[in-house]
C-alpha cells in the first residue's frame, strides 16, 4: 500500500462507528512491554520517543483528538 492510501484509510473522512473495541481487549495486555515509537512534541516540533517518558517515571498516556 502506498503511503497516500495508508493516510487516507487511517484518517477516514467519515465516521461510521467501526472502532475495534473487542480487538483492543487482547491487543496489548497488562504486563506487556509498552511499544516505543517517535512522535513530535507540539510545543517545539522536536521528535521525542515515548520511552523517554517511562525512563524517568511512571507515565499516563492518553490518546485522543479534538473531534
Amino acid at each position, binding site marked *: 500500500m502506498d*503511503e497516500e492510501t*495508508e*493516510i*487516507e484509510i*487511517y*484518517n*477516514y*473522512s*467519515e*465516521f*461510521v*462507528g467501526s*472502532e*475495534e*473495541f*473487542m*480487538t*483492543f*481487549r487482547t*491487543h*496489548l*495486555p*497488562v*504486563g*506487556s*512491554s*509498552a*511499544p*516505543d*515509537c*517517535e*512522535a*513530535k*512534541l*507540539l*510545543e517545539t*516540533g522536536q521528535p*521525542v520517543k*515515548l*520511552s523517554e*517518558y*517511562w*525512563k*524517568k*517515571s*511512571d*507515565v*499516563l*498516556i*492518553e*490518546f*485522543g*483528538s*479534538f*473531534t
Partner: protein
Amino acid sequence: MAREFASKGVNFIFVYTREAHPGENYPAHRSFEQKLDHARAFKGEFKVERPLLVDDLTGTAHKLYGSLPNMTYLISRGGKVLFRADWTDPPTIEYTINYVLDSRARRREGLRLAPFYAEFAGYRWNDPAKFQEGLARAGQQAVDDFSRAMEKRLKQPLRPGRIELSE
C-alpha cells in the same frame, strides 16, 4: 490531576491521533501541518498543560496501542503496561494510580505482596449534550455521520462484550 500526580512521580502525556469525528471545521488530516494545527486548536480549547505529542500521519503510535479514539494506558517506570482502558475516565485513572502508589508504599513498609492479574467492567459518566457540542464544533458532517452510525447500531445487537450495570 496531572499536576497532583507529577509530584508523586507519575507524569501525564497526551498523544494526538486522527480525528475521530471529522467534519467541515476539522476534516480528516491530509498533511502533518494540518494535524499540528488541529492539535494546537485542541490544546487551546481545553487548556492542555500536559506535553502534547503529535503522532505521525499514518498513526504509528496510535496503531501500536490499539487505535481506539479515547484510550488510556498507565506505563510503569521501566516500560510495562500496568493499566489500560478503552475509554479515558478520570475517576478510574485517579483510583488506579492511587492503588499502584499505595501498593508500593505498603511494600516499602514491609508488607509481603504478590502480583496478580485483574480486569474489571468500567462505568463512566456519559454527557450526551457535551458530546453533541463537540460534534457540532467539528461541523455538521460530524453530527450527521454520528447520528447515522447510531441509527445503524440501534438495529444491531448490543456491542459484544458490553456489560450492563444491571447484569
